[in-house]
């Protein structure tokens, strides 16, 4: 696969879902921040599992079970290496990024944080990195603060510096905003928090498929991935736990796989990663996610990142020529997510009309209602790119947006 470059026809040929018409136009899929399409390799890995190795894991001595277990555990290793996790035992398979964050709230923060402690979030978080903490804060009498943003939509580092202090015990923040396209300097932030004894959770849902990720370098305590946003299946995600937190993890869900010994009176538990993986896991999806890692590394995450940024800059340039266009978020060094509004046209209507031209945009609050309130907009439209997006598609999108403009004038 080595000669595949982002946006090239040979790369696009690997994604079956791209090659279809919507309302008589070729599909322009610009909703990659919601979920990405899957290359044939990933789809084939799922099929292969069910056609050949299908079996439950960990519990069996027979051939199929041995094969399934070996592939599943190899997937854990592969994902550990993909993010340079310090120890693959800290790589936990979850349903997605949302569940991974809830897991940290229940199995770590719930027992480690004390009443009065503060959890710091940012004003640009996805609901998945807000609501689990609100539920926990209510239960455990913690407080929550939100680090504010600069007018351009970046973290305000002066304010952040103030907030990274007692009673803050945990800073959970997104690597890339799914609305603003802002890229937060995660390594620098984690270093600062760490120097002040504050634990960190990096929500890498938006970066895991787009950016090189190195957990050793980040030195965060928890790292959260979303499989379906990185060419993997739906229903799989990852929580990576830094070994310095292994001893602080309580049992989470109970059931098969996570126990050592069960009696009528009580139970003892296995160590990580099994402690946090009760029940039959999404075996095929975990194996397919490892194939997605192989695929992304064969393209090169640096190349993907550059491709995203180039498209974002092109979109900023082309879109801003449209009358009444307001683009949200930083003007430079940003990810491939471009949110915008058109004066006097509601985002729902933008998306509806775009769809008639085969263009898949997203409109709404993007699961970031608090940010919307900061931006003083009930909603925005959003175009988000990925490694298969072409410059030509961005040009066509700009033309369609101009037609949307016309339709409502």
């Amino acid at each position, binding site marked *: 696969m080595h000669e595949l470059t982002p946006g090239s026809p040979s790369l696009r040929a690997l994604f079956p879902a791209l090659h279809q018409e919507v309302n008589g136009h070729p599909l322009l899929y610009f909703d990659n921040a919601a979920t990405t399409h899957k290359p044939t390799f990933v789809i084939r890995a799922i099929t292969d599992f069910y056609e050949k190795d299908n079996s439950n894991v960990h519990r069996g001595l027979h051939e199929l079970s041995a094969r399934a277990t070996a592939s599943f555990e190899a997937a854990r290793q592969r994902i550990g290496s993909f993010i340079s996790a310090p120890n693959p035992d800290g790589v936990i398979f979850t349903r997605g990024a949302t569940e991974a964050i809830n897991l940290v709230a229940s199995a770590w923060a719930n027992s480690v944080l004390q009443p009065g402690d503060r959890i710091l979030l940012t004003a640009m978080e996805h609901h998945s990195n807000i609501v689990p903490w609100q539920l926990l804060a209510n239960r455990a009498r913690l407080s929550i603060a939100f680090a504010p943003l600069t007018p351009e939509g970046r973290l305000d580092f002066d304010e952040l510096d103030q907030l990274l202090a007692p009673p803050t015990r945990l800073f959970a923040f997104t690597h890339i905003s799914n609305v603003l396209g802002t890229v937060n300097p995660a390594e620098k932030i984690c270093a600062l928090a760490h120097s002040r004894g504050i634990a960190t959770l990096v929500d890498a849902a938006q970066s895991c498929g787009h950016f090189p990720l190195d957990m050793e370098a980040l030195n965060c305590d928890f790292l959260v991935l979303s499989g379906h946003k990185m060419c993997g299946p739906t229903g799989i995600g990852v929580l990576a736990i830094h070994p310095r937190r292994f001893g602080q993890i309580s049992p989470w869900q109970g059931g098969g796989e996570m126990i050592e010994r069960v009696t009528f009176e009580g139970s003892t538990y296995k160590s990580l990663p099994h402690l946090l993986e009760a029940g039959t896991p999404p075996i095929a999806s975990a194996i397919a996610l490892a194939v997605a890692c192989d695929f992304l590394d064969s393209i090169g995450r640096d190349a993907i990142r550059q491709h995203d940024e180039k498209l974002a800059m092109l979109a900023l340039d082309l879109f801003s020529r449209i009358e009444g266009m307001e683009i949200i978020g930083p003007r430079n060094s940003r990810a491939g997510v471009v949110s915008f509004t058109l004066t006097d046209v*509601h985002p729902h209507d933008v998306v509806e009309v775009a769809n008639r031209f085969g263009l898949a945009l997203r*409109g709404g*609050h993007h699961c970031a209602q608090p940010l919307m309130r900061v931006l003083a907009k009930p909603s925005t439209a959003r175009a988000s790119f990925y490694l298969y997006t072409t410059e030509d598609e961005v040009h066509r999108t700009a033309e369609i947006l101009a037609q949307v403009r016309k339709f409502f004038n």
Partner: protein
Amino acid sequence: MELEELYQSIILEHSRRPRNKGPLEGATHTAVGNNPACGDEIAVQVRLGPTGIVEAAQFTGQGCAISQAAASLFTIKLKGKTQEEACKLIRQFIEMVKGLPEEEDRSGKPSGEMLFGDLAAFAGVRKFPQRVKCATLAPNAFYEIFAGHRSENA
């Protein structure tokens, strides 16, 4: 499916220049409609006369062309109606945009008052199921006022 089926000219016109938008002087009742999918919120207000007739209806809040136009048109249509008439009109409207209950008749023809009125412009919404919530946002809120409870959530 053509765009014009959804965005009839009367809808576009009302969404561009909504009528009766703004707080209502001397309102007797207020209700709020909220679409969690997009974060849109519309507040509706009415002033009921001593005999229970709608003397005035207004609305505030942002939303898409469909929800704004529906709000605007209903502020006009409701004026002068009894609460019972208002409820009936809203129920008919909601049935229309959701599609008739009878599977046989999917011709898209609205019934009763709406056959002839401006509200018939919303008949196309049934072909866009994701927009039913938009069309019914304000009507549902009005219904809450007149029926004393929220209508079946569209």
